[in-house]
């Protein structure tokens, strides 16, 4: 409760928005008025009391698909971002702490990974590997972690030369203590900021992959493929594609509102790193 009270007004709104999305994802079968793949009306029906957001190109209820889509989008983008952060941060810190050839090896390998265009790399890998959700998450996580690696290594190199790290070394602390107890707490601010951004990118990347037919497979719903499926309607003035797009935007903004507020707390005078 104390944590929530300390959040700014904007962050509270962000948190509420986030919770609404999260709850609808969890309780999708209870909340959703229709079945996920159930065809309940004509294609592209306008907004009505029966269909709150109208229907999609096949006549499935948009609200229902939006709620079910939240599950996929949330879970896949969230898991991919979390994994990419755990991996990228750890390897980045490890490289900064070990220095020398280990650092060179990891960093140059990372450069090599980054030199492939992300989308093309993902397309090649996903078309070779069996198409399931776990592969999708891992591929997204690995590709994303290259960016996280660069950031966390740069941050850690700065912290690593501080005297309190030297003091820990002189005490005889192990590398893992230095990474998790001395460096990590001081690197949280830039990492949190990056997390908010990368989550948004993950949602968009998933949407792109789905759009190209390599992400979530139809008839399952996710916000990105919903945009794709309904995009043709825009030409006829039908807003069906805009509704999942708005959902993506709202979720991104909510996450960033919360992250910004946490960021401000961690950079405040209390324990700020000057």
């Amino acid at each position: 409760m104390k944590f929530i009270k300390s959040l700014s007004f904007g962050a509270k709104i962000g948190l509420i928005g986030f919770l609404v999305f999260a709850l609808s994802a969890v309780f999708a079968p209870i909340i959703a008025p229709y079945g996920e793949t159930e065809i309940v009306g004509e294609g592209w029906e306008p907004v009505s009391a029966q269909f709150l957001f109208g229907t999609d190109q096949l006549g499935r209820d948009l609200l229902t698909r939006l709620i079910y889509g939240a599950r996929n989008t949330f879970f896949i983008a969230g898991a991919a971002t979390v994994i990419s952060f755990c991996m990228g941060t750890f390897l980045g810190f490890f490289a900064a702490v070990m220095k020398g050839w280990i650092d060179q090896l990891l960093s140059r390998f990372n450069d090599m990974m980054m030199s492939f265009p992300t989308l093309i790399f993902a397309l090649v890998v996903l078309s070779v590997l069996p198409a399931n959700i776990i592969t999708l998450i891992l591929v997204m996580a690995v590709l994303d972690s290259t960016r996280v690696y660069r950031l966390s290594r740069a941050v850690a190199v700065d912290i690593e030369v501080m005297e309190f790290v030297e003091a820990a070394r002189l005490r005889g602390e192990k590398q893992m203590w230095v990474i998790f107890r001395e460096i990590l707490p001081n690197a949280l601010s830039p990492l949190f900021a990056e997390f908010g951004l990368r989550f948004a990118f993950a949602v968009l990347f998933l949407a792109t992959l789905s759009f190209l037919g390599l992400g979530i497979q139809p008839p399952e719903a996710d916000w990105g493929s919903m945009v794709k499926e309904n995009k043709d309607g825009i030409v006829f003035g039908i807003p069906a594609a805009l509704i999942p797009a708005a959902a993506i935007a709202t979720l991104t903004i909510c996450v960033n509102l919360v992250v910004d507020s946490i960021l401000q707390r961690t950079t405040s005078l209390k324990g700020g790193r000057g």
Partner: protein
Amino acid sequence: MADNNLLLDVRDLKIGATIQVPGEKPYDIEIVHGVSFTLEKGKVLGLIGESGAGKSTIGLSSMAYGRGSVEITGGEVWLDGEQILGHSHDQIRKVRGRKVAYVSQSAAASFNPAHRLGDQVIEAAMEHGLSSRSEAKAFADHLFAKLGLPDPDNFGRRYPHQVSGGQLQRAMTAMALCSKPDLIVFDEPTTALDVTTQIDVLAAIKDAIHDTGTAALYITHDLAVVAQISDDIMVLRNGEMVEYGSVDQIINNPQEDYTKSLVSVRSILKEEGGELDAEPVLNCRNITASYSNSIRVLHDVSMHLHKGQTLAIVGESGSGKSTMARVITGLLPQETGDIYFKGQQLPRELKQRSKEELRSLQMIYQMADTAMNPRQTIGQIIGRPIEFYFGVTGREKRKQVIELLKKIELDENFYDRYPAELSGGQKQRVCIARALAAKPDLIICDEVTSALDPLVADGILKLLLKLQKETGVAYLFITHDIATVRAISDSIAVMYMGKLVRFGPKSQVLEPPFDDYTDLLLSSVPEMELGWLENVLKHRKMESAGH
């Protein structure tokens, strides 16, 4: 103004600042509470006080300038018959650099590294259209010569990185003098310099302002320095004036208690312990060391230190004294030579040392700010060595930490606080407690008091001595401050350019006959008496004439 001699008249100056803590409402505080003083043409007023006393803020207010969110909230500043506080942006720009100039503490950070010194020195004079380029350049060369810079005609062609710190500080003084201002604000111009350099810069500044008839505000925390250069002194504390009088009166007859404590600072003196026959705690034999770029920084250095005693390593920056500490801690393995610690040979590299060896050799750093993890509480910081070396956890650990806090004269309430909430002196105390928590036999103190105000530093030194008496720990004390050395050491090692110049018990090292370098070093330490600077310089001139 009636009095034509009056240059600067500050009346009831009030300065405030806005503090903004993220997540909280910004609030205003007052830094300076109504200070008044006057300065006549050609005179020098010294502003003295500890950090946070508002001396820099007051100095800058004479240019109607406030740093960051600092704002002048009340009072009047009359400069040469003009009230400059009400001036518009354009009006005040005509005053700055033309009538008032500023010399900052860190000349190295104040010069643009991409431009030649000469162009930067004459910039203000050109900007204000005071003289043509060739005139300004000629005057700058004249100033370089007056300030004793080498090869004055070509000095302006150099870049900032090509000259030393002391020369850079003098170049900055030339920059201030170049537009022939009425007033120069010197903000700790010699604080970052070595004592042997400081004395030259002081003499140069004194000559130059005397010859050009410029008035000056001289801001410093070192009373001995200000006594050499000023006509009057104003003592400040917490944004209020404590005492204001002539140099003679402040130094020889201070009225206020605070001024008295400033004058009598460093009155501690440790009785020198005798040379012991027993095995020394630390024995370094013929150490040579170099950094990876193969420049040798230590040449054949040997020294030893006994239990319960203090060995002070003195020297200027670049003398290799901190490198010595890095070698002993194992951060920089020596090339040749051996280190014996409690009779055992110490492995060269940190990785090869046992936990026990690491425990009994602790280190305290100069900057307590960066030596503590800002995300850990004081309890965690002090508690970690206890847990790490002795495996003590939980309630027992808390108890031991609190005992240590009491030893360093802090109370239990500090346990859950973060380093950022502590003052400079308190932070350094916590670092001492962290070192003590390991129950070491030797503590390396790397310039532990250099970043602190004199009175606070005094407290730290007293604490260190008290703890030495209680625990019998030996200190290797690295410093450039001779006064500190006099106060606390048993034996002294003087270092210069990576070589050991002089080593022995305090009474021997500080007594004549001196070698040339030790003589220079000892005679360069400012003393709190009038005319000290002149005497030393006269003495040196006579000596060099005699040679």
